[in-house]
């Protein structure tokens, strides 16, 4: 696969969710400052929290910030739907939309709002969870259920503030995330989160300056159910090009499986699900749209 990938027909959408204090704004600030590649359009709730080095700001007008790397950051002033409508009806379409969900939001609901219309692809939700406060927040009378819902609805999870957490706190948090949502992909670092949030097929895999990790791409497959044999064959084809695959597949015969591909090995087990939700992450340059089309 040496030909450059075509511009995707659907605009990728990434939702960054999680409760207050989980690190959404920090991640978005990092993402905006360090992004290199097709520009991101980042929609945020609280414009005032965006903190970018002055040198990186190309223009600032009202509730829109344009950066020298081409990224644009704007606040969701009225409703998310209206904001998305304005963006997708422009002549120059966004390359990739990143949505910062409100701390009180259910990521699945935002995904329903921001998927598969007006040229938008299926939204992928990345939910941030504060490793230090998870136990306490889960017990909170008001937001305990919300935080569990947010974790359950995630495609991808990131445990933040790991550098501040003792080993046993981190381990306990990881166990908890796995118990609530075994199908979601648990990221190793905020670097990975940054990459996934801005993931797009790019001309060539590149190294991030401060990282040994290659430039990644990622997409989420949703829908189904799928015919088992045909789906299996396609999975086997794509797996060698992927770093990780994780999620749930629903089959037409009524069965479902939880899948995980990592380190060139499959782990699969029967589960119960009526729809497919599978996250693919890879470092190798492939024609993503073509692959996606085959499922």
């Amino acid at each position, binding site marked *: 696969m040496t030909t450059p990938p075509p511009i995707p027909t659907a605009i990728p959408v990434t939702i960054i969710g999680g409760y*207050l204090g989980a690190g959404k704004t920090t991640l978005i600030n990092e993402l905006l400052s360090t992004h290199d590649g097709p520009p991101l359009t980042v929609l945020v709730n609280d414009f*005032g929290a965006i903190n970018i080095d002055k040198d990186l700001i190309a223009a600032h007008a009202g509730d829109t910030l344009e950066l020298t790397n081409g990224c644009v950051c704007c606040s969701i002033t009225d409703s998310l739907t209206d904001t998305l409508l304005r963006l997708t009806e422009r002549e120059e379409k966004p390359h990739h939309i990143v949505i910062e969900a409100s701390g*009180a939001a259910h990521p699945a609901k935002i995904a*329903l709002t921001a998927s598969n219309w007006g040229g938008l692809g299926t939204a992928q939700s990345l939910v941030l969870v504060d490793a230090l406060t998870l136990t306490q927040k889960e017990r909170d009378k*008001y937001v305990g259920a919300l935080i569990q819902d947010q974790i359950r609805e995630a495609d991808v999870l990131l445990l933040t503030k790991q550098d501040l957490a003792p080993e046993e706190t981190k381990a306990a948090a990881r166990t908890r995330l796995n118990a609530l949502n075994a199908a979601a992909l648990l990221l190793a670092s905020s670097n990975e989160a940054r990459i996934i949030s801005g993931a797009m097929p790019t001309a060539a895999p590149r190294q991030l300056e401060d990282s040994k990790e290659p430039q990644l791409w990622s997409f989420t497959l949703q829908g189904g159910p799928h015919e088992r044999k045909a789906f299996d064959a396609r999975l086997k084809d794509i797996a060698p090009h992927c770093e990780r695959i994780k999620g749930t597949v629903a089959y037409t015969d009524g069965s479902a499986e939880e899948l995980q591909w990592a380190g060139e090995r499959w782990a699969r087990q029967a589960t119960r699900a009526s729809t497919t939700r599978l996250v693919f992450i890879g470092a190798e340059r492939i024609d993503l749209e073509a692959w996606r089309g085959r499922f």
Partner: protein
Amino acid sequence: MTQITVFPAKKIITMNPAQPEATAVAVRDGRILEVGTLESLRPWLEAFPHKIDDRFKDKFLMPGFIDPHLHPSMAAVLLPMRFVTAMEWRLPWEIVAPVTTPEAFLKRVRDIDAEMESPEAPLFIWGYHQLWHGKMRRAALDDISKTRPIVIWHRSFHELYMNSACLKWAGIDEASAGGHHQVDIENGHFFENGLRLAMAKLNSYLLSPAHYHEGLKRLARVAHFGGHTTLGDMAVGIFNFEMEWQTTKTFLDTDETPFRVQMIPASNILFGEKGSNEAALDFIKTLPERNTNRLRFYDHVKLFTDGAFFSQLMQLKAPGYIDGHHGEWLMPPEHFEAAARTYWNAGYKIHVHCTGDLGVDLALDTLAKLQEEKPRFGHRFTIEHFGLSTPEQVRRMKELGALASVNIYYFHELSGTYAREGLGFERASQMARVGSLLREGVPFAFHSDFTMAPALPLNSASVAATRINAEGTLMGEDERVPVHDALKAITSEAAWILGLEDEIGSIRAGKKADFTVLEEDPYQVAPESLNDIPIWGTIFEGTPHEIVR
């Protein structure tokens, strides 16, 4: 000096416990000089020129009705639409007869279409419900018109259907919306988040001056029709703060408008616009400079906790919903607390939208914390809507000095359904527990949250006094209140909750001369018939305004 006008009446129900009844009231310059008898008014009448206006001598005067919580902007969007509904709706310009079969529904739409002059003018119908009207299809609407955009709006407001002409008119097609999870283009069906997409396309029409202005004029007629002389706009800024203010000023601030509107800003929306609670507060502080005689901003502000009652998104304490789903916070609890603290410390009277019992807990826990930090008397912290609650929360409201503004219509429309789905009988039968409020001595008012419930205060009073729901079932009989307390909730107690007790809410010397004129005595009819009492009209600041049918 202006002449005194005296209104004799068969009975004047004052809602002033010190003098509950009278037979004549003297009015000058929009204020009550004295209420009593023609005999007791003599010192006034001997001292000044006066006239006796005896057109109400066989009628019943009450203090002008007050709806402390409705949304003129939302009403302005809905009211220009044609109503085709399963239940009777009484509107000033028509009594909408119930339409209860799929065939009758389509026939009614077809008849309305045929009545319209221009074949291209859009037609918006509100009130469809599948329980009565069957499955709706785009093809069936195309049969009615291929040229006129037709929108069929669901009674719940959460979904709508369009015909092909409308899809084209709105610029929606398979490519732009077909893949949305909550859009079925084949049938022209948009629901929940899909509805937001449809709304974004239709808003340029619904919020256009022609449509919106007509809607606001109709709202004025609806408010008058219900017998109101004071409204609370309990979230100025829902669509667009300045647009709402300007249009309200243009269309309601006129001599013909027989009511005043207390303007209570939606703090969360202003937070979004201004960037912080402090900036929003600074802005809100400037708003009274805009006041006119009829439109008034003051020291009241609106906050929100949990999600919509009609969508089962209220936040519940244990045992939660039967199906295990969770409600929603409209803002993170920490943000709610921060906003409440800002307005509390600035001395504002805070109205909190709370639908579920966990929402009530959040509001009361926050109130307790704020009382600890900065104790306040007379804070009038009000729980708005008060869908689900516990008896212990009511006692705690008393302890903390909180008030309740209740949407009693929740009980009327939803208690039957929610007993079967979502909540179970026990909790559904005790929603909007006004009997408990009365027992604990917590002041309470009724509101319509129009367009969530009909803006008919006597209807609210009737529901509270009977607890007979839309299915004709008596539920939660121990949460009933006597007729007198139900009538207080649409007059004196509503005035208290809006902080206007010195001006309105009862008939006594010194208050505004606002009266609602009834053809029958509400204490002499059965509680279930309160809403059938004909309303002649109102007197607003001394001037009679007859309801024109």
